[in-house]
């Protein structure tokens, strides 16, 4: 079998006395949607932070696309092909939508350096056309000129996704993309993720179990910083420990 796109080995991290991650072995194969579920405080966001490079582990290693990225900074990992969205919406609220996405396009290595001091960035038609394309893809084309801070919550989640896509990732880390959205918006987000998954590998952290079972090729369950199970969705449904720890016995 080919090497997985993302291979995490023995990843551990403590915050003071709290062991947030305890020896996690985890992998994501190229092309799959791998869902990571678990109760609140299980360590899911902390795990995403470590894969994206926002935090450094106490122990363990992270390999991505055949290279050890454990010591690489976040911006280096973005250039290597790892993009993320945030559980708590994190966009430039005073900038227009298209400026938000254009920043993501401009930050890409193939867009050239940003140590350019003279030419107005707004005159770079290529960058803005591409940014508009990503907005169209997530259904926000009509709002391109609006400040991001004025968007409804669900629209901001979609903007997050457009910014992540604009970095042209190989691996997309989505931290609860449905959090706080209404049923209709959640439905649209599921469709969107399904569509994106044709081109990009996705690690999906999500509480909405309907969405998880619809989207995921594999599911991993994190409880108290330990990975208790990884397998196909059907096996997860049946697994007694998972039912007890997370789904509740009625599920």
């Amino acid at each position, binding site marked *: 079998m080919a090497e997985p796109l993302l291979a995490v080995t023995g990843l551990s991290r403590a915050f003071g006395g709290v062991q947030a991650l305890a020896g996690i072995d985890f992998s994501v194969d190229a092309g799959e949607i791998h869902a990571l579920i678990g109760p609140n405080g299980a360590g899911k966001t902390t795990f995403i932070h470590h894969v*994206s490079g*926002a935090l450094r582990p106490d122990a363990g290693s992270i390999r991505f696309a055949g290279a050890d990225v454990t010591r690489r*900074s*976040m*911006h280096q990992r*973005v*250039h290597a092909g790892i*993009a*993320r969205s945030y559980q708590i919406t*994190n*966009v*430039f609220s*005073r*900038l227009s939508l298209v*400026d938000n996405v254009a*920043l*993501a396009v*401009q*930050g*890409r*290595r193939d867009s050239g*350096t*940003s*140590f*350019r*001091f*003279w*030419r*107005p*960035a*707004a005159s770079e038609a290529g960058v803005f056309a591409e940014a508009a394309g990503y907005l169209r893809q997530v259904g926000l084309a009509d709002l391109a000129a609006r*400040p991001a801070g004025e968007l409804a919550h669900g629209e901001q989640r979609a903007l997050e996704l457009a*910014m992540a896509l604009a*970095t042209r990732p190989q691996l997309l880390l989505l931290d609860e993309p449905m959090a706080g959205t209404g049923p209709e918006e959640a439905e649209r987000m599921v469709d969107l993720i399904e569509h994106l998954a044709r081109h990009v590998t996705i690690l999906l952290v999500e509480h909405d179990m309907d969405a998880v079972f619809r989207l995921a090729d594999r599911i991993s369950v994190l409880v108290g910083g330990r990975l208790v199970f990884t397998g196909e969705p059907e096996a997860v449904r049946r697994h007694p420990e998972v039912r007890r720890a997370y789904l509740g016995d009625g599920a």
Partner: protein
Amino acid sequence: MGFYQPAPYQKAAARLLLAALVALPFALEAAGQGFYIGLVSRIMIFALAATSLNLVLGFGGLFSLGHAAFFGAGAYASAILMAAGVGEAFVAWPAVMAAAGLLALAVGAISLRTRGVYFIMITLAFAQMVYYLFVSARAWGGDDGLPLAGRASLAGLGLGGDRAFYFVVLGCLALTLFGLGRLAQARFGRVVQAIRENEARMEALGYPVFRYRLACFALGGALAGLAGALLANLTGLASPSLLQWTQSGTLLVMVIIGGVGTLYGGVVGAVVLLLLEEALAGLTLHWHIGLGGLLLVIVLFAPRGIAALFGGRRG
């Protein structure tokens, strides 16, 4: 704050102002008030220094309390070069800017690893070190500062006359403002402004945040160095008072009352502060109190600075 965008009439206003400033020395001389040419030069030099801080603080979002270190170092560097016989501005001033920029690069490389109040304190600490370094160096005049034997020349032309020197200062200020207006709308300017808004998000978009901040900090230092060189040439002295932390404070006050993150904030702040100082000092010995009161009024009624009252979108 969003990205910097010039107000619609800004270009026309800038041209008008430039024309007025070109005519001013001739008008002053005709009116027999040539003395004021030096005062206006001084104001423009401080406008340049405050503008360089506004690049760092307003656009880069870096609250440095050590900007005077680069201002003063520029003054000393030009005096040292003059003493070494380098009086040609086209040679000396780029060298001064490089020296001040390198000093800022070194200070920034360490301070920019900290955030918030630590950054404020560490930039202050570095500036104090630079201050004591110059004050304790006997060869550089110690407490008395380092006098310049004469003014620099520009492409061989002497700048001893107040009018000639005025035009050099005006040229430096105008070019800086023009360049900064370009920079603020170019890729680099957008990146540092976006970092000011949300540094973690920029890192997550693939930007090496530290490198952009450092470049912004060093560029601000280099421009402050140029202002320092101009001031030393105007007054004929590289004074240690230029390096004092109170000088950093004065520049900060100029930027804050003028408008943080506006292109002309530094200029407006320098003009207002120095003219008030001049006017009030003539009226009363207790002018500091009056100045404090006026600053209070400005901050209360124009919390985003005077330049922001004129509609130019903040950077």
